[in-house]
């Protein structure tokens, strides 16, 4: 079913890869050039992503579109199979959108190391941007892969560049001397890598198991998602309950680490805290999404029964993540760690939505991935600008910034409001959908999760109050410069997007809905029906036909 048209998906991934090589190839002296090259490629990738988004037809038949399929490693039953559904398109667009901003925001993050080392061969700047592009390429590929093995390859491989990004580049704001800071960074990076590697290797066992099963029952082992799904549907492939559950757990563990889900979250605060804020954005807004995305695409579709079997536990864990993350966020003294814990809480919402197994839940979860990406990016990048000005991550070192840098404070507030999902901003839509979706099947869990929105307000407003309001902390704060043009260029579009998607998310929902319906049909779940029959179907009384007599009767 490979259509022989232009291989869009491959190009979308190849472009940043090429960019990475090009950037890395530039000599040490051409630092600025490297930055521009990287930016150029990332923007081009975004353009390509847009092309994909437009070429994609939400109404079309079949789960995947723009598919490419080539033989690769026959012995492993691996094919180079790419394809996108609405969810993938949305997330690819998100990734491609964020990377240019990440690059712009990190414009000077890799310069500092330069002076320290007058070494012709050591080229941190080139490395920094090349690595970012490499990550982008791998992330995009893992969104596109419809072959489990292919997905696994990039799911794992992207750890390496991430690892170097975390461990190699700091924001010099840890308050410790460079040596100790480097040590902390290194340990954070190692923690990140080991957690995810362990998860990945467990998953590898499951992947191999999957191959063994398919090879055993279908004659030839295969990793093609569609093939397996169809085989299961047609009954050619039947997993024993025990096997299915083991395999599911193997997959889910890896994704839960990546997502991250309580109690596998402890790598995230370190990684996000120690790395520069653009990298932190890369982690939480882009890379971690692969985990939640994979739950939707692989966990649910490959192992429907096991998924529903595990749902209760997972929902509880997600619930814990929501409250736990929020509570810990409240207690943080470090801005970036606070945002990290906030993200943990948000990932709790996403996973909650995914496993609520309702169209609202999963649709909301997908929207949540996108919106959380944008909102966290906005908040984290502004925080990064702030930190880079003062050279400290500690909340206690700030206060009254609003007086010195009103723009910065304003954008920071908007980012914060998005994080606490204020209606009118994008995250509200997704969060509410997740809550409704959960509530309609698991009312109690839904209600408890709702408490999360109060806690969210708490940590955001506390952060804002302590950093931005009150009398300026000291002369250094009083002298803080406001946002520069480059920084405005980064934040402005993000905020605009938050507003737009908050008011008019329809393009996104139209994109996502069919994919979600397909997933649900694979999992074989329907939305629960309302108890009370309402003859008036929602939205039927559009176009200004009078509503008064409803009210009149209602009041009698």
């Amino acid at each position: 079913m490979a259509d022989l048209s232009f291989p869009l998906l491959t190009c979308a991934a190849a472009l940043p890869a090429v960019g990475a090589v090009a950037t890395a190839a530039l000599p040490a002296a051409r630092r600025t050039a490297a930055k521009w090259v990287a930016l150029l490629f990332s923007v081009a990738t975004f353009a390509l992503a847009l092309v994909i988004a437009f070429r994609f037809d939400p109404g079309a038949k079949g789960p995947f579109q723009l598919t490419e399929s080539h033989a690769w490693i026959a012995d492993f039953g691996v094919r180079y199979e790419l394809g996108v559904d609405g969810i993938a398109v949305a997330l690819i667009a998100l990734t491609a959108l964020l990377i240019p901003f990440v690059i712009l925001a990190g414009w000077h993050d890799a310069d500092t190391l330069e002076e320290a080392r007058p070494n012709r061969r050591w080229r941190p700047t080139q490395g920094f941007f090349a690595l970012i592009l490499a990550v982008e390429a791998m992330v995009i590929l893992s969104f596109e892969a419809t072959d489990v093995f292919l997905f696994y390859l990039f799911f794992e491989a992207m750890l390496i560049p991430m690892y170097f990004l975390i461990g190699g580049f700091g924001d010099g704001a840890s308050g410790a001397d460079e040596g100790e800071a480097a040590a902390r960074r290194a340990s954070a990076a190692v923690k990140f890598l080991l957690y995810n590697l362990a998860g990945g290797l467990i998953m590898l066992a499951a992947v191999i198991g999957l191959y063994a099963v398919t090879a055993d029952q279908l004659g030839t082992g295969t990793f093609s998602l569609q093939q397996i799904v169809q085989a299961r549907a047609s009954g050619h492939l039947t997993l024993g309950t025990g096997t299915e559950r083991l395999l599911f757990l193997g997959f889910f563990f890896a994704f839960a680490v990546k997502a991250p889900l309580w109690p596998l979250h402890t790598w995230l605060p370190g990684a996000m805290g120690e790395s520069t804020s653009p990298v932190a954005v890369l982690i939480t807004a882009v890379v971690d999404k692969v985990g939640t995305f994979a739950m939707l695409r692989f966990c649910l579709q490959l192992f429907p029964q096991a998924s529903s079997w595990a749902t209760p536990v997972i929902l509880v864990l997600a619930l814990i993540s929501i409250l736990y993350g929020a509570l810990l966020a409240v207690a943080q003294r470090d801005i970036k760690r606070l945002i990290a814990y906030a993200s943990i809480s948000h990932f709790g919402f996403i996973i909650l939505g995914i496993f609520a197994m309702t169209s609202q839940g999963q649709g909301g979860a997908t929207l949540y991935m996108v919106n959380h990406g944008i909102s966290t990016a906005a908040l984290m990048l502004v925080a990064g600008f702030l930190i880079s000005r003062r050279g400290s991550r500690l909340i206690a070192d700030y206060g009254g910034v609003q007086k010195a840098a009103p723009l910065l404070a304003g954008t920071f507030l908007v980012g914060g409001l998005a994080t606490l999902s204020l209606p009118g901003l994008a995250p509200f839509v997704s969060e509410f959908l997740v809550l409704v979706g959960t509530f309609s099947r698991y009312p109690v869990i839904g209600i408890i999760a709702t408490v999360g929105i109060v806690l969210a307000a708490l940590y955001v407003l506390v952060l804002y109050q302590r950093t931005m309001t009150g009398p300026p902390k000291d002369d250094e704060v009083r002298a803080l410069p406001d946002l520069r043009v480059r920084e405005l260029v980064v934040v402005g579009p993000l905020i605009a997007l938050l507003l737009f998607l908050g008011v008019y998310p329809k393009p996104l929902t139209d994109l996502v809905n069919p994919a979600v319906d397909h997933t649900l049909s694979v999992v074989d779940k329907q939305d629960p029906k309302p108890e009370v029959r309402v003859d008036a179907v929602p939205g039927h009384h559009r176009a200004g036909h009078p509503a008064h007599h409803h009210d009149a009767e209602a009041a009698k």
Partner: protein
Amino acid sequence: MENLIALLIAAPLVGAALLLCGGKRLDRTGHWIGTLLAVASFAVAAVLFTDMLGRATDDRALHQHLFTWIPVGGFHADIAFQLDQLSMTFVLLITGVGSLIHLYSVGYMAHDERRRRFFGYLNLFLAAMLLLVLADNYLLLYVGWEGVGLASYLLIGFWQHKPSAATAAKKAFLVNRVGDVGLSIAIMLLFTTFGTFAFAPVLDAAGTAGSAGEGKVTAIALMLLLAACGKSAQVPLQSWLGDAMEGPTPVSALIHAATMVTAGVYLITRSGALFDAAPAAQTAVVAVGAVTLLFGAIVGCAKDDIKKALAGSTMSQIGYMIMAAGLGPIGYAFAIMHLVTHGFFKAGLFLGAGSVMHGMNDEVDMRRYGGLRKHMPVTFITFGLGYLAIIGFPGLSGFFSKDKIIEAAFAKGGTEGLILGGAALLGAAITAFYMTRVMLMTFFGEKRWDPDEVHPHESPKTMTIPMIVLAFGSVFAGGLFSINEAFVHWLEPVTSLAHGHPPFGATVTTAATVVVLLIGVATAWLMYGRRPVPATAPRGSVLTRAARRDLLQDDFNHVVLVRGGTHLTDTLVRLDHTLVDGAVTGTAVTMGGLSGLLRRLQNGFVRSYAAQMVGGAAVLVAVTLLMRGV
């Protein structure tokens, strides 16, 4: 005609966008742009109003569908507006009072370098509030609901350099969020129960929900009540309103007196059908209302800060409205009517207070006032009229609306009726007392301020004109509304009307009202009019001291929520480090230790290596043999 509805919201929204993103170049003209757009919105409202009057009573509701907002599966939310008599009333109140207060602020904020942003926030508030009352479904209402919350957050904390202001703002937002939880849960329940959350179908089905739905409906109603409590500062979520007075006075007048805080009343009235179908919930509503109206009144008596005193009174007045709304069809209309009149006179009172502060170098302690009537006559007169209105002096607005509510309360019948009516009467008496107290301490008696430092003076026109207009409203609105129940009938298509009959005729209740009113005034005059007011507050009775501290509500919050919360989070942080993270690092450490142990085997001596090999061989052989069982 319905296409104008969007314009109502658009005008102030555009203003907000302009002023907040406009940058410095708008600093000089910004406030006028803001005011202009507010007035424009009011003009549109007026046009719509006249049009509405022009049409038959049962054909007055308008509906405008802009676009589909969130379509996911069965979940379908529209961006659509509904303008019926209820909404219209609010729209007029909001835009009208709003415009006036914009005008007032021009003068009041004249010397603030961030005035542009202030007007931006005000416009933002107008837009959100209008969205709240115009939405045709609960989710969109929720957007406005939180929107006004945001605006109030921004405006309370407008003077961010004051830590107290920032704290107050945060508190207001958080307490409101608690209420919002109620609203969002209510919406979820609506969705799962009715499959929709648009007003029309839901309210249709509410009555016919039947026994199956009743439990659900009650739950929904209670959740809506929770939301109302948050927004309208009703017990137990009232604690934020007092602190909210940290904001500039026009804000207190507009948001925390006239409009936003009455959103809860709107919500309950709008959802009348649901409440009617859930008697239990209604009882809860009236209970909350009654408690709050007393609570607020008591607090109001003890405050020396003029704005906080007025805040207490606001709380109590909204208590009246909530109670009325809880009474069902016999109360809805009067609740709204009191809401409107209250909008006039309370706004007027606040503006008066603002004007006083303006002349007294932002002094808020009434014990530093005294004998100001000579120095600021206009303020004195307008404030005085507002005062007469609020205590319900016969013939003025407050009298008509409040009296009706008390009637309705008695009309509820039975002991419940007596309790509610009694509470209402008592409240009226206390209101008379504390308002008289405010009046006396501010404008009468000898001056308690130092003439060398402060030079009381009348405020500029931009400030006095709105006060005068509002004063007119406070005097005549009630009377106009009551001319053969014009207001009630105007609302009837929306809220419906049921005439309650108090056990003892209307005249009796009216008389009672007047009597308690006089008692209240008299006591106040005895305490503050006859003898001089001490410049520093006396220790006062236990009740007084408690009342000064909002009846210990905040102390409770502090001990239970704040401290408890801090403990909780701190423990969690420790656990996260030791337990969750420790588990992982623990395994790593164990591995290291194990490694160190095994390393010992590699001791460098050939012979020990050989020995281990022999051992290995032995095991190998042994196991092989065992496997075969030889």
